[in-house]
């Protein structure tokens, strides 16, 4: 039984997530701030000299920038809230999916109840994220605790190996 399904909640440390991002060779972070990942991820990333953080105004910009970066084999990570993912849907469709690009999306599930699967959330906006990713054919994984974090670098590596987008959902709120 998964932790989410069992209702048990353990910690998700931002540093563990960040180590996985680095392990996957990502150095460019493309982001619109998300309260869910703000303290544990975005603030530490902003002051980490190993990262180049590009703050964009709206999420669909990220798809163009990430596409361009692939022409230097530069790995980037889109760090946004689920609402931003929904906002950028056409660009995700047209750029990441149809052009078969390894666009890696880390999506904060703001408001997801601890220990509850995203599809079982009380919040409509959260319940629809995984079904939408399934329709789009984008592989996805949900990170709840530190124990889940090895799936982050694995997902990014797979995206680059297959030249396909991937989505890493951040279910647990990363601690600073």
């Amino acid at each position, binding site marked *: 039984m998964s932790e989410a399904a069992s209702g048990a909640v353990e910690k998700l440390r931002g540093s563990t997530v960040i180590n996985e991002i680095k392990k996957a060779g990502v150095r*460019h972070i493309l982001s619109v701030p998300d309260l869910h990942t703000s303290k544990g991820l975005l603030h530490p990333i902003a002051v980490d000299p190993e990262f*180049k953080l*590009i*703050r*964009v*105004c*709206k999420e*669909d*910009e*990220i*798809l*163009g*920038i*990430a*596409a*361009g*970066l*692939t*022409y*230097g*084999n*530069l790995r980037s990570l889109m760090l946004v809230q689920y609402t931003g993912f929904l906002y950028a849907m*056409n*660009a995700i*469709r*047209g*750029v990441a999916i*149809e*052009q*078969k690009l390894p666009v890696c999306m880390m999506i904060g599930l703001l408001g997801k109840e601890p220990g509850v699967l995203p599809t079982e959330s009380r919040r409509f906006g959260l319940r629809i994220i995984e079904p939408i990713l399934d329709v789009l054919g984008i592989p996805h994984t949900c990170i709840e605790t530190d124990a889940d974090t090895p799936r982050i670098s694995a997902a990014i590596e797979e995206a680059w190996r297959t030249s396909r987008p991937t989505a890493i959902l951040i279910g647990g709120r990363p601690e600073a």
Partner: protein
Amino acid sequence: MIDRKKALELLAARITDEIVVSTYSTATDWLSIIDRPLNYFSSGAMGLASSHGLGLALARPERRIIVLDGDGSLLMNLPTLVTIGRVAPRNFTHLVFCNGTYEANGGHPIPNPDVDFEGHARAAQIKKTFTVNDLDAFKDRIDYILHEEGPVFGSIKVEQGILGPRSYKDMYKGERRAALRSALGV
């Protein structure tokens, strides 16, 4: 007002190893003038040409990136100017061909054809900007477009081009993106 194709012909005569990012009507004109592996056609979502160009500028700092945008397209991604102004890539030129219409979508006017794009760029802290209204002025700017340390933003006032369906099938094919990657050794 400038004949867009004549302006592009002048630019095409001067480019060497720059990556040229173009979109919609400007892209079809550009491709009809010069077909080369270093052309990058922004596709998939309208308005993102400059964002693609920004990513390319960061990925390929050794090359000049020239974005040939449209006014209708830029309006769909106007905050890109703020992002570009902040990132400030030195190898980046953003030209917006302004005809006041969504030419690719039937010639309907943009919400305000009198919008001051250069003013928007300057407000976004892009310091090197210009607006040109005639072909001679554009010609005089080509060295600046190609060589001035970026980011450079130029608003080019053009006449509306030929309306009607244009085919994007050839420019959007995957082989073109593969050719660019090959040319860049990626």
